[in-house]
């Protein structure tokens, strides 16, 4: 856990995701485009974890930033003919951050249902705009014709998705590094304080509202970058990046993985997207049924998600082990 009592050294288990990603790259070259997609959604889930898991902001509208980032990156290419990938990323980040400040400053004074509705309405509005402003966004057909120059003028986005995968992996690594620093910092500890007890945070003189706007903006920026990555790897933007559905999806992924645990954001998208890729095309009904049941089960029985269960099992095993060894000791 984060905070003043935390041990912030990187544990060996924290290297596992990166080792796994490396192995994936070499062992499963035919699945690299799915892999890139997973990496992007991990980054997106990470941004959501920052506000939901740490600061406790409940939102159904996080897709607003993801989608806006995706469209911005695309439009920068189609309208302004700027195909430099880093400029596209920066533009997406900036626009998403702007939306984050603007909407955060307005809606973060509210709570609970009202906040939920406001976040939902904002992403719904964006969806409506994207749907209607056909000249800009391609409307329901999606925005095609997005061009992305080779990265650093050298690494071309290839057909097999090798460049895309590595590009997303680096972006995710940077994102993970930033988020990890953030949550272990005094700022992160302060966010946990807001989540735990807002009244108390007010009473120790924390400008809670501004802090929330700040973290909301940081998270929005990250989500925007994730959206832009999706555009760049697909060279296409569809309407499905905005609205309730992607917001719900990412929320579900994070919850399945485990919220407020940093690595829940890694596990959730992996499990969700692979299962989706496998099931959704052939048996969409079973996919919905399965994911729905799983979600209900997690909410009712395992609020910590998959990682929470792993923790619990480990604790149980450790205490069993201790019991045994102490029993052995006393037997002697």
């Amino acid at each position, binding site marked *: 856990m984060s905070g003043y009592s935390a041990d912030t050294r990187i544990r060996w288990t924290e290297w596992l995701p990166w080792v796994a990603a490396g192995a994936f790259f070499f062992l499963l070259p035919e699945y690299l485009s799915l892999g890139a997609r997973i990496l992007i959604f991990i980054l997106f889930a990470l941004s959501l974890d920052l506000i*939901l898991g740490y600061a406790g902001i*409940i939102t*159904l509208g996080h897709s607003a930033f993801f989608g806006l980032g995706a469209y911005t990156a695309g439009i920068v290419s189609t309208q302004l003919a700027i195909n430099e990938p880093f400029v596209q990323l920066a533009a997406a980040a900036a626009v998403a951050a702007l939306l984050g400040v603007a909407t955060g400053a*307005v*809606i973060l*004074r*509210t*709570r*609970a*249902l*009202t906040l*939920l*509705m*406001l976040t*939902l*309405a*904002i992403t*719904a*509005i964006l969806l*409506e*705009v994207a*749907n*209607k402003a056909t000249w800009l966004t391609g409307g329901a057909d999606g925005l095609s014709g997005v061009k992305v120059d080779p990265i650093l003028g050298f690494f071309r986005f290839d057909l097999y998705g090798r460049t895309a995968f590595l590009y997303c992996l680096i972006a995710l690594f940077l994102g993970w590094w930033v988020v990890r620093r953030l949550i272990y910092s005094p700022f992160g500890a302060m966010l946990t304080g807001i989540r735990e007890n807002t009244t108390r945070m007010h009473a120790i003189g924390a400008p809670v509202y501004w802090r929330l706007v700040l973290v909301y903006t940081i998270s929005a920026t990250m989500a925007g970058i994730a959206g832009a990555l999706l555009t760049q790897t697909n060279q296409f933007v569809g309407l499905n990046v905005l609205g*309730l*559905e992607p917001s*719900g999806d990412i*929320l*579900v992924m994070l*919850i399945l993985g485990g*919220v407020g645990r940093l690595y829940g954001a890694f596990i959730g998208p992996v499990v969700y997207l692979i299962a989706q890729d496998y099931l959704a095309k052939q048996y*969409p*009904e*079973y*996919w*919905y*049924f399965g*994911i*729905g*049941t*799983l*979600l*209900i089960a*997690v*909410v*009712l029985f395992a*609020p910590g998600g998959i990682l929470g269960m792993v923790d619990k099992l480990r604790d149980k095993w450790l205490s069993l082990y201790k019991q045994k060894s102490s029993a052995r000791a006393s037997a002697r």
Partner: protein
Amino acid sequence: MILYVISVGLSVTMGLMGFINLAHGVFAMAGGFILSTAMARFGVPFPLALVAAFVLVSLGSIFLEKILYSRLYARGELSQVLFCIGLILVAMAVARLIYGNLAAPVFLPDYLRGQVQVLGRDFPTYRVFLILFSGVLILSLWTGVERTRWGAMVRAAVDNRGMAQSVGINTKRLFMITFALGSGLAGLGGALGADILPVQWGYPFEHLVYFLIVVAVGGLGSLRGPFVAALLIGIADTACKYWVPALGAFLVYAATIGILLWRPQGLFGVRA
């Protein structure tokens, strides 16, 4: 009006009971399917099918309440929201497995088809019937919640559950009945509206935003609120699509944001 009948049910569960029930559309969908099946498959007459939709959905919701919802009353909003998303997904899958991709057909009886003359203009009979029916429903609900012992008990229980319990109100049963009523109303709404809002498997998700807007804008814990909100939004939506189709549903969302910022507790909300 349909929106109202469905949403008022939601206002009952969400407002009176304080449960963020996003899965409300599921009950509306179930109502629509029951109506359709009852009429098409078993030849049940329309009024009876409506009753069946109400009763069956209520019963089904009691079951769900008992085994699932009741565990979540004390949990945070996030758990409730997620649980509902899960329920929606399951319900959609089930609906699709049973009914396939098509909308459930609804055959109105002859006496509700055609046109009727009101103030010298022609209106579709069914819509007039809907408006009258909803009117009666609203009035009876109003008197129900404001005037009867049941209404007083629910309001007391929501205000202070422990206190209500200690003065001898069985809050568990009370919540169950309230939930059943709310869901039953949703079922009724879904059934009534099946002709206008086609019922098919994507239903709970597609209309979710509208239901939520109606309740949030109307305000939790009031019955008048969702009524006014449903009217407002219905009119705004229609007008907007009629005059400036380019804007689409944009105005409705913008209005929602505006109203919620102006009055975070909703137009007639009792509590924030």
